[in-house]
Protein backbone atom coordinates (compact mmCIF):
# COMPACT_ATOMS: atom_id res chain seq x y z
CA UNK A 1 0.00 0.00 0.00
CA UNK A 2 1.26 3.42 -0.87
CA UNK A 3 2.63 5.47 1.95
CA UNK A 4 1.63 9.11 2.30
CA UNK A 5 1.69 11.94 4.80
CA UNK A 6 -1.30 14.00 5.84
CA UNK A 7 -2.41 17.01 7.80
CA UNK A 8 -5.53 16.61 9.90
CA UNK A 9 -7.92 18.74 11.90
CA UNK A 10 -8.87 17.08 15.15
CA UNK A 11 -11.95 17.93 17.14
CA UNK A 12 -11.28 16.39 20.52
CA UNK A 13 -13.36 16.24 23.70
CA UNK A 14 -11.51 17.88 26.60
CA UNK A 15 -12.75 17.57 30.15
CA UNK A 16 -10.67 18.35 33.23
CA UNK A 17 -12.33 15.78 35.49
CA UNK A 18 -15.59 13.99 36.18
CA UNK A 19 -17.21 17.04 37.68
CA UNK A 20 -16.22 19.73 35.22
CA UNK A 21 -18.11 20.50 32.06
CA UNK A 22 -16.21 19.44 29.00
CA UNK A 23 -16.02 20.91 25.53
CA UNK A 24 -14.62 20.19 22.10
CA UNK A 25 -11.27 21.71 21.15
CA UNK A 26 -9.81 21.95 17.67
CA UNK A 27 -6.22 20.88 17.03
CA UNK A 28 -4.15 20.58 13.90
CA UNK A 29 -1.61 17.81 13.43
CA UNK A 30 0.84 17.86 10.54
CA UNK A 31 2.95 15.35 8.64
CA UNK A 32 1.15 12.32 9.97
CA UNK A 33 2.31 9.13 8.31
CA UNK A 34 -0.32 6.80 6.87
CA UNK A 35 1.55 3.97 8.57
CA UNK A 36 0.98 5.34 12.06
CA UNK A 37 -1.69 3.97 14.34
CA UNK A 38 -4.42 6.27 15.57
CA UNK A 39 -2.88 6.30 19.04
CA UNK A 40 0.55 7.18 17.65
CA UNK A 41 -1.09 10.12 15.94
CA UNK A 42 -2.36 11.13 19.38
CA UNK A 43 1.16 10.73 20.74
CA UNK A 44 2.34 13.22 18.13
CA UNK A 45 -0.42 15.60 19.12
CA UNK A 46 0.42 15.23 22.80
CA UNK A 47 4.14 15.88 22.25
CA UNK A 48 3.23 19.06 20.45
CA UNK A 49 0.85 20.07 23.24
CA UNK A 50 3.53 19.46 25.86
CA UNK A 51 6.06 21.53 23.86
CA UNK A 52 3.50 24.33 23.68
CA UNK A 53 3.02 24.16 27.44
CA UNK A 54 -0.51 22.79 27.16
CA UNK A 55 -1.95 19.80 28.92
CA UNK A 56 -1.80 16.59 26.80
CA UNK A 57 -5.01 14.75 25.95
CA UNK A 58 -5.66 11.89 28.35
CA UNK A 59 -6.64 8.62 26.68
CA UNK A 60 -6.67 4.97 27.73
CA UNK A 61 -4.29 2.48 26.17
CA UNK A 62 -2.20 -0.46 27.22
CA UNK A 63 -1.26 -3.30 24.86
CA UNK A 64 -1.58 -1.33 21.60
CA UNK A 65 -2.03 -4.62 19.81
CA UNK A 66 -5.76 -5.10 19.99
CA UNK A 67 -5.97 -7.53 22.89
CA UNK A 68 -6.47 -5.60 26.13
CA UNK A 69 -9.52 -3.50 25.37
CA UNK A 70 -8.17 -0.37 27.08
CA UNK A 71 -8.20 1.98 24.11
CA UNK A 72 -11.60 3.57 23.82
CA UNK A 73 -12.28 6.36 21.38
CA UNK A 74 -15.48 7.16 19.57
CA UNK A 75 -14.11 8.30 16.23
CA UNK A 76 -16.27 10.05 13.63
CA UNK A 77 -19.44 8.53 15.01
CA UNK A 78 -18.21 4.99 15.55
CA UNK A 79 -16.54 3.27 18.50
CA UNK A 80 -12.96 2.32 17.52
CA UNK A 81 -13.25 4.24 14.26
CA UNK A 82 -14.28 3.35 10.71
CA UNK A 83 -12.76 -0.12 10.30
CA UNK A 84 -14.67 -3.31 11.01
CA UNK A 85 -13.54 -5.72 13.73
CA UNK A 86 -10.84 -3.37 14.88
CA UNK A 87 -9.66 -1.56 17.99
CA UNK A 88 -8.58 2.09 18.12
CA UNK A 89 -4.94 1.08 18.63
CA UNK A 90 -5.06 -1.05 15.49
CA UNK A 91 -6.72 1.64 13.43
CA UNK A 92 -4.13 2.99 11.03
CA UNK A 93 -3.96 6.48 9.67
CA UNK A 94 -4.40 5.22 6.13
CA UNK A 95 -8.07 5.15 7.05
CA UNK A 96 -7.95 8.94 6.64
CA UNK A 97 -7.09 11.40 3.89
CA UNK A 98 -5.12 14.62 3.93
CA UNK A 99 -7.27 17.50 5.19
CA UNK A 100 -9.84 15.33 6.98
CA UNK A 101 -11.51 16.55 10.13
CA UNK A 102 -11.69 13.79 12.73
CA UNK A 103 -14.06 14.05 15.69
CA UNK A 104 -12.97 12.11 18.78
CA UNK A 105 -15.29 11.61 21.74
CA UNK A 106 -15.19 9.44 24.86
CA UNK A 107 -17.62 6.50 25.31
CA UNK A 108 -20.93 8.03 26.31
CA UNK A 109 -22.92 6.17 28.94
CA UNK A 110 -23.82 7.14 32.48
CA UNK A 111 -22.42 3.82 33.64
CA UNK A 112 -19.07 4.87 32.12
CA UNK A 113 -18.46 8.30 33.63
CA UNK A 114 -15.68 10.41 32.13
CA UNK A 115 -12.58 10.54 34.34
CA UNK A 116 -10.65 12.93 32.15
CA UNK A 117 -10.78 13.88 28.46
CA UNK A 118 -11.23 10.61 26.57
CA UNK A 119 -10.75 8.32 29.58
CA UNK A 120 -13.87 6.77 31.04
CA UNK A 121 -14.33 4.67 34.15
CA UNK A 122 -15.16 1.11 33.08
CA UNK A 123 -14.90 -0.55 36.48
CA UNK A 124 -18.62 -1.33 36.16
CA UNK A 125 -17.51 -4.17 33.88
CA UNK A 126 -15.15 -5.48 36.55
CA UNK A 127 -17.97 -5.53 39.08
CA UNK A 128 -20.19 -7.44 36.65
CA UNK A 129 -17.45 -10.04 36.21
CA UNK A 130 -16.93 -10.23 39.96
CA UNK A 131 -20.62 -10.96 40.40
CA UNK A 132 -20.34 -14.30 38.59
CA UNK A 133 -17.87 -14.44 35.74
CA UNK A 134 -15.78 -17.14 37.34
CA UNK A 135 -15.70 -20.89 37.89
CA UNK A 136 -14.81 -22.94 40.94
CA UNK A 137 -11.56 -24.86 40.66
CA UNK A 138 -10.19 -27.11 43.36
CA UNK A 139 -6.62 -26.55 44.35
CA UNK A 140 -4.15 -29.38 44.07
CA UNK A 141 -2.67 -31.04 41.03
CA UNK A 142 -3.73 -29.71 37.67
CA UNK A 143 -6.37 -31.95 36.10
CA UNK A 144 -5.50 -33.71 32.86
CA UNK A 145 -6.69 -31.46 30.06
CA UNK A 146 -8.27 -34.35 28.18
CA UNK A 147 -10.17 -35.78 31.14
CA UNK A 148 -13.29 -33.76 30.32
CA UNK A 149 -14.81 -34.44 26.91
CA UNK A 150 -16.03 -31.23 25.29
CA UNK A 151 -17.93 -31.01 22.04
CA UNK A 152 -15.74 -29.26 19.46
CA UNK A 153 -18.48 -26.92 18.18
CA UNK A 154 -19.27 -25.86 21.72
CA UNK A 155 -15.62 -25.34 22.53
CA UNK A 156 -15.30 -23.14 19.43
CA UNK A 157 -18.42 -21.16 20.27
CA UNK A 158 -17.17 -20.72 23.82
CA UNK A 159 -13.80 -19.57 22.55
CA UNK A 160 -15.44 -17.07 20.19
CA UNK A 161 -17.35 -15.62 23.15
CA UNK A 162 -14.21 -15.58 25.28
CA UNK A 163 -12.63 -13.27 22.70
CA UNK A 164 -14.45 -10.32 24.31
CA UNK A 165 -11.80 -7.92 25.60
CA UNK A 166 -14.20 -5.86 27.70
CA UNK A 167 -13.57 -2.67 25.77
CA UNK A 168 -17.11 -1.34 26.14
CA UNK A 169 -17.60 -0.38 22.50
CA UNK A 170 -20.88 -2.30 22.53
CA UNK A 171 -22.18 0.02 25.25
CA UNK A 172 -20.85 3.06 23.41
CA UNK A 173 -22.60 2.08 20.17
CA UNK A 174 -25.91 1.04 21.67
CA UNK A 175 -28.72 3.58 21.63
CA UNK A 176 -29.76 2.19 25.02
CA UNK A 177 -26.22 2.14 26.47
CA UNK A 178 -26.81 -1.51 27.16
CA UNK A 179 -23.98 -3.83 28.16
CA UNK A 180 -25.88 -6.90 27.03
CA UNK A 181 -23.37 -7.99 24.37
CA UNK A 182 -20.54 -7.89 26.89
CA UNK A 183 -22.60 -9.74 29.50
CA UNK A 184 -23.76 -12.31 26.97
CA UNK A 185 -20.19 -12.99 25.89
CA UNK A 186 -19.14 -13.59 29.48
CA UNK A 187 -22.15 -15.76 30.28
CA UNK A 188 -22.11 -17.95 27.16
CA UNK A 189 -18.37 -18.39 27.32
CA UNK A 190 -18.80 -20.27 30.59
CA UNK A 191 -22.26 -21.72 30.01
CA UNK A 192 -20.99 -23.61 26.96
CA UNK A 193 -18.32 -25.47 28.91
CA UNK A 194 -18.68 -28.20 31.54
CA UNK A 195 -16.42 -26.17 33.84
CA UNK A 196 -19.07 -23.48 33.98
CA UNK A 197 -21.81 -25.87 35.04
CA UNK A 198 -21.72 -25.59 38.88
CA UNK A 199 -22.45 -21.83 38.92
CA UNK A 200 -24.44 -21.84 35.71
CA UNK A 201 -27.72 -20.53 37.14
CA UNK A 202 -26.47 -18.23 39.87
CA UNK A 203 -23.97 -16.73 37.44
CA UNK A 204 -26.46 -15.34 34.95
CA UNK A 205 -28.83 -14.08 37.63
CA UNK A 206 -26.12 -12.35 39.68
CA UNK A 207 -24.26 -10.86 36.73
CA UNK A 208 -27.47 -9.48 35.26
CA UNK A 209 -28.50 -8.02 38.62
CA UNK A 210 -25.13 -6.28 38.84
CA UNK A 211 -25.42 -4.98 35.28
CA UNK A 212 -28.83 -3.50 36.04
CA UNK A 213 -27.46 -1.94 39.23
CA UNK A 214 -24.67 -0.22 37.30
CA UNK A 215 -27.20 1.77 35.29
CA UNK A 216 -26.77 0.33 31.80
CA UNK A 217 -29.86 0.38 29.61
CA UNK A 218 -31.85 -2.65 28.51
CA UNK A 219 -31.23 -4.44 25.24
CA UNK A 220 -33.66 -4.10 22.33
CA UNK A 221 -31.81 -6.34 19.87
CA UNK A 222 -30.90 -3.59 17.39
CA UNK A 223 -27.52 -5.15 16.62
CA UNK A 224 -25.44 -1.94 16.71
CA UNK A 225 -23.14 -3.61 19.25
CA UNK A 226 -22.36 -6.60 17.08
CA UNK A 227 -21.51 -4.32 14.15
CA UNK A 228 -19.00 -2.31 16.14
CA UNK A 229 -17.44 -5.01 18.32
CA UNK A 230 -13.71 -5.33 17.61
CA UNK A 231 -13.89 -9.05 18.38
CA UNK A 232 -17.04 -9.66 16.36
CA UNK A 233 -18.92 -11.08 19.32
CA UNK A 234 -22.13 -12.43 17.82
CA UNK A 235 -25.64 -11.29 18.72
CA UNK A 236 -26.45 -14.99 19.06
CA UNK A 237 -24.80 -14.77 22.46
CA UNK A 238 -27.55 -12.41 23.60
CA UNK A 239 -30.19 -14.96 22.59
CA UNK A 240 -28.19 -17.56 24.50
CA UNK A 241 -28.00 -15.26 27.51
CA UNK A 242 -31.78 -14.85 27.37
CA UNK A 243 -32.21 -18.60 27.34
CA UNK A 244 -29.81 -18.96 30.27
CA UNK A 245 -31.76 -16.32 32.18
CA UNK A 246 -35.14 -17.84 31.41
CA UNK A 247 -34.10 -21.32 32.54
CA UNK A 248 -32.20 -20.07 35.58
CA UNK A 249 -35.08 -17.95 36.81
CA UNK A 250 -37.66 -20.66 36.13
CA UNK A 251 -35.83 -23.31 38.13
CA UNK A 252 -34.65 -20.99 40.91
CA UNK A 253 -35.57 -22.26 44.34
CA UNK A 254 -36.72 -19.09 45.99
Amino acid at each position, binding site marked *: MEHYNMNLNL*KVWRQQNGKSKGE*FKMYRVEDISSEMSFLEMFDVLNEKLIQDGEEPVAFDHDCREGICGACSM*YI*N*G*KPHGPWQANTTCQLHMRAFKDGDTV*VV*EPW*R*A*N*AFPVIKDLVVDRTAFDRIIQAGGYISVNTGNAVDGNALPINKDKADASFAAAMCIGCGACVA*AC*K*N*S*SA*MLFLSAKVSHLALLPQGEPERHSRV*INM*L*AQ*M*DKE*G*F*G*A*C*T*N*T*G*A*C*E*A*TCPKEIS*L*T*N*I*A*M*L*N*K*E*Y*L*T*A*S*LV*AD*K
Partner: protein
Amino acid sequence: MTWKQMFTSSIGKKLVMSFTGIFLILFLIVHVSLNACIWANDGGEMFNKGAHFMGANIVPRILEIGLFLGLILHIVQGYMLTVQNRKARSIGYAVSYGNGGSKWYSRSMALLGTLVLLFLILHLSNFWLPNRSSQGLSLGGEIDLYAKMQETFSGRDAVTVLTILVYVLGCAALGYHLAHGFQSAFKTLGVHNKRYHIMLKSLGYGFSIIVPLAFAMMPLSFHFGWL
Protein backbone atom coordinates in the same frame (compact mmCIF):
# COMPACT_ATOMS: atom_id res chain seq x y z
CA MET B 1 -35.24 -14.84 42.37
CA THR B 2 -38.90 -14.03 42.97
CA TRP B 3 -41.43 -13.90 40.12
CA LYS B 4 -41.35 -10.16 40.42
CA GLN B 5 -37.56 -10.02 40.05
CA MET B 6 -37.78 -12.42 37.17
CA PHE B 7 -39.94 -10.06 35.16
CA THR B 8 -38.51 -6.73 36.28
CA SER B 9 -34.82 -7.21 35.54
CA SER B 10 -33.67 -5.80 32.21
CA ILE B 11 -34.08 -9.19 30.53
CA GLY B 12 -37.31 -9.77 32.45
CA LYS B 13 -38.83 -6.63 30.96
CA LYS B 14 -37.78 -7.86 27.54
CA LEU B 15 -39.56 -11.11 28.29
CA VAL B 16 -42.74 -9.20 29.04
CA MET B 17 -42.42 -7.33 25.74
CA SER B 18 -41.78 -10.60 23.96
CA PHE B 19 -44.67 -12.58 25.49
CA THR B 20 -47.18 -9.79 24.94
CA GLY B 21 -45.77 -9.16 21.46
CA ILE B 22 -46.20 -12.78 20.42
CA PHE B 23 -49.70 -12.76 21.87
CA LEU B 24 -50.51 -9.69 19.76
CA ILE B 25 -49.01 -11.39 16.69
CA LEU B 26 -51.35 -14.33 17.27
CA PHE B 27 -54.24 -11.90 17.47
CA LEU B 28 -53.18 -10.35 14.15
CA ILE B 29 -53.33 -13.77 12.52
CA VAL B 30 -56.91 -14.29 13.72
CA HIS B 31 -57.91 -10.76 12.80
CA VAL B 32 -56.46 -10.80 9.30
CA SER B 33 -57.85 -14.26 8.51
CA LEU B 34 -61.37 -13.34 9.58
CA ASN B 35 -61.28 -10.02 7.79
CA ALA B 36 -60.03 -11.64 4.60
CA CYS B 37 -63.56 -13.05 4.32
CA ILE B 38 -64.61 -9.70 2.87
CA TRP B 39 -63.06 -10.93 -0.38
CA ALA B 40 -65.32 -14.00 -0.47
CA ASN B 41 -67.46 -12.23 -3.06
CA ASP B 42 -70.71 -12.86 -1.25
CA GLY B 43 -71.68 -9.38 -0.17
CA GLY B 44 -70.16 -9.84 3.26
CA GLU B 45 -72.17 -12.89 4.31
CA MET B 46 -69.17 -14.98 5.30
CA PHE B 47 -67.44 -12.02 6.92
CA ASN B 48 -70.47 -11.19 9.06
CA LYS B 49 -70.79 -14.83 10.08
CA GLY B 50 -67.19 -14.72 11.28
CA ALA B 51 -67.86 -11.49 13.13
CA HIS B 52 -70.92 -13.04 14.69
CA PHE B 53 -68.91 -16.03 15.84
CA MET B 54 -66.42 -13.72 17.55
CA GLY B 55 -69.10 -11.54 19.10
CA ALA B 56 -71.55 -14.22 20.19
CA ASN B 57 -69.12 -16.70 21.64
CA ILE B 58 -67.93 -16.45 25.22
CA VAL B 59 -64.38 -17.68 24.54
CA PRO B 60 -63.30 -14.91 22.14
CA ARG B 61 -65.05 -12.39 24.36
CA ILE B 62 -62.97 -13.47 27.33
CA LEU B 63 -59.83 -13.60 25.20
CA GLU B 64 -60.61 -10.06 24.15
CA ILE B 65 -60.15 -8.89 27.72
CA GLY B 66 -56.79 -10.62 27.76
CA LEU B 67 -55.98 -8.96 24.48
CA PHE B 68 -56.58 -5.50 25.89
CA LEU B 69 -54.57 -6.29 29.00
CA GLY B 70 -51.72 -7.61 26.87
CA LEU B 71 -51.87 -4.58 24.64
CA ILE B 72 -51.82 -2.16 27.56
CA LEU B 73 -48.93 -4.03 29.18
CA HIS B 74 -47.01 -3.96 25.89
CA ILE B 75 -47.58 -0.23 25.50
CA VAL B 76 -46.84 0.81 29.08
CA GLN B 77 -43.78 -1.42 29.40
CA GLY B 78 -42.54 -0.26 26.00
CA TYR B 79 -42.73 3.40 26.94
CA MET B 80 -41.16 2.79 30.34
CA LEU B 81 -38.26 0.93 28.75
CA THR B 82 -37.75 3.69 26.21
CA VAL B 83 -37.58 6.35 28.89
CA GLN B 84 -35.30 4.26 31.08
CA ASN B 85 -32.97 3.47 28.19
CA ARG B 86 -32.76 7.11 27.16
CA LYS B 87 -31.79 8.00 30.72
CA ALA B 88 -28.76 5.70 30.54
CA ARG B 89 -26.93 8.30 28.42
CA SER B 90 -27.32 11.88 29.65
CA ILE B 91 -24.68 13.35 27.36
CA GLY B 92 -25.08 12.34 23.75
CA TYR B 93 -22.57 12.16 20.93
CA ALA B 94 -21.69 15.04 18.62
CA VAL B 95 -21.56 12.61 15.69
CA SER B 96 -24.21 9.91 15.88
CA TYR B 97 -23.62 6.33 14.92
CA GLY B 98 -26.59 6.33 12.56
CA ASN B 99 -27.51 3.41 10.37
CA GLY B 100 -24.05 1.85 10.29
CA GLY B 101 -24.80 -0.99 12.61
CA SER B 102 -28.54 -1.31 12.93
CA LYS B 103 -31.72 -0.86 10.96
CA TRP B 104 -33.53 2.42 11.52
CA TYR B 105 -36.78 0.67 12.34
CA SER B 106 -35.12 -1.44 15.02
CA ARG B 107 -34.10 1.79 16.75
CA SER B 108 -37.52 3.41 16.23
CA MET B 109 -39.82 0.87 17.87
CA ALA B 110 -41.31 3.46 20.25
CA LEU B 111 -42.07 5.87 17.43
CA LEU B 112 -43.52 3.15 15.19
CA GLY B 113 -45.50 1.78 18.12
CA THR B 114 -46.90 5.23 18.81
CA LEU B 115 -48.02 5.56 15.18
CA VAL B 116 -49.72 2.17 15.40
CA LEU B 117 -51.37 3.27 18.64
CA LEU B 118 -52.72 6.47 17.05
CA PHE B 119 -54.10 4.45 14.18
CA LEU B 120 -55.57 1.98 16.67
CA ILE B 121 -57.49 4.72 18.45
CA LEU B 122 -59.14 5.74 15.19
CA HIS B 123 -59.69 2.12 14.22
CA LEU B 124 -61.34 1.19 17.51
CA SER B 125 -63.61 4.21 17.37
CA ASN B 126 -64.57 3.31 13.79
CA PHE B 127 -65.59 -0.28 14.42
CA TRP B 128 -65.07 -1.75 17.84
CA LEU B 129 -66.74 1.01 19.82
CA PRO B 130 -69.99 1.26 17.80
CA ASN B 131 -70.21 -2.53 17.70
CA ARG B 132 -69.65 -3.13 21.39
CA SER B 133 -71.92 -0.31 22.44
CA SER B 134 -74.69 -1.89 20.42
CA GLN B 135 -73.95 -5.26 22.05
CA GLY B 136 -73.48 -4.13 25.61
CA LEU B 137 -72.56 -7.05 27.82
CA SER B 138 -74.69 -9.50 25.88
CA LEU B 139 -73.38 -12.09 23.50
CA GLY B 140 -74.38 -11.49 19.91
CA GLY B 141 -76.36 -8.49 18.61
CA GLU B 142 -73.47 -7.17 16.51
CA ILE B 143 -74.03 -4.43 13.99
CA ASP B 144 -73.61 -5.23 10.29
CA LEU B 145 -69.85 -4.79 10.27
CA TYR B 146 -69.53 -5.33 6.52
CA ALA B 147 -71.94 -2.48 5.91
CA LYS B 148 -70.03 -0.44 8.47
CA MET B 149 -66.79 -0.99 6.53
CA GLN B 150 -68.53 -0.02 3.33
CA GLU B 151 -69.85 3.14 4.95
CA THR B 152 -66.45 4.04 6.43
CA PHE B 153 -64.34 3.46 3.34
CA SER B 154 -66.35 3.84 0.15
CA GLY B 155 -67.15 7.56 0.29
CA ARG B 156 -65.32 10.07 -1.89
CA ASP B 157 -65.32 12.85 0.71
CA ALA B 158 -62.25 14.25 2.46
CA VAL B 159 -62.92 12.51 5.77
CA THR B 160 -63.02 9.10 4.11
CA VAL B 161 -59.89 9.72 2.11
CA LEU B 162 -58.12 10.93 5.23
CA THR B 163 -59.31 7.90 7.18
CA ILE B 164 -57.98 5.57 4.50
CA LEU B 165 -54.68 7.41 4.51
CA VAL B 166 -54.35 6.94 8.27
CA TYR B 167 -55.19 3.25 7.87
CA VAL B 168 -52.56 2.73 5.20
CA LEU B 169 -49.91 4.62 7.17
CA GLY B 170 -50.89 2.74 10.32
CA CYS B 171 -50.38 -0.53 8.47
CA ALA B 172 -46.98 0.62 7.17
CA ALA B 173 -45.91 1.50 10.72
CA LEU B 174 -47.17 -1.89 11.88
CA GLY B 175 -45.13 -3.57 9.15
CA TYR B 176 -41.89 -1.96 10.23
CA HIS B 177 -42.71 -2.52 13.90
CA LEU B 178 -43.16 -6.22 13.13
CA ALA B 179 -40.07 -6.41 10.91
CA HIS B 180 -38.00 -5.91 14.04
CA GLY B 181 -40.44 -7.09 16.70
CA PHE B 182 -41.22 -10.53 15.29
CA GLN B 183 -37.67 -11.86 15.22
CA SER B 184 -36.63 -9.90 18.30
CA ALA B 185 -39.42 -11.52 20.34
CA PHE B 186 -38.06 -14.97 19.58
CA LYS B 187 -34.47 -13.95 20.29
CA THR B 188 -35.66 -12.73 23.67
CA LEU B 189 -37.20 -16.12 24.33
CA GLY B 190 -33.74 -17.53 23.82
CA VAL B 191 -33.91 -18.96 20.30
CA HIS B 192 -30.24 -19.05 19.44
CA ASN B 193 -29.94 -22.14 17.25
CA LYS B 194 -28.95 -20.92 13.82
CA ARG B 195 -31.45 -23.15 12.07
CA TYR B 196 -34.45 -21.82 13.95
CA HIS B 197 -33.15 -18.32 13.98
CA ILE B 198 -32.83 -18.16 10.19
CA MET B 199 -36.28 -19.66 9.79
CA LEU B 200 -37.90 -17.25 12.23
CA LYS B 201 -36.15 -14.30 10.64
CA SER B 202 -37.51 -15.06 7.17
CA LEU B 203 -40.91 -15.89 8.66
CA GLY B 204 -40.83 -12.53 10.46
CA TYR B 205 -40.04 -10.55 7.33
CA GLY B 206 -42.72 -12.43 5.40
CA PHE B 207 -45.26 -11.84 8.15
CA SER B 208 -44.42 -8.17 8.46
CA ILE B 209 -45.02 -7.65 4.74
CA ILE B 210 -48.02 -9.90 4.07
CA VAL B 211 -50.19 -9.17 7.09
CA PRO B 212 -50.00 -5.34 7.07
CA LEU B 213 -50.40 -5.40 3.29
CA ALA B 214 -53.55 -7.49 3.60
CA PHE B 215 -54.89 -5.09 6.23
CA ALA B 216 -54.09 -2.07 4.10
CA MET B 217 -55.86 -3.64 1.12
CA MET B 218 -59.13 -3.80 3.05
CA PRO B 219 -60.05 -0.11 3.13
CA LEU B 220 -58.59 0.29 -0.36
CA SER B 221 -60.74 -2.58 -1.63
CA PHE B 222 -63.89 -0.96 -0.32
CA HIS B 223 -62.88 2.42 -1.65
CA PHE B 224 -62.03 1.30 -5.15
CA GLY B 225 -64.65 -1.43 -5.32
CA TRP B 226 -62.23 -4.35 -5.63
CA LEU B 227 -64.70 -6.68 -4.00
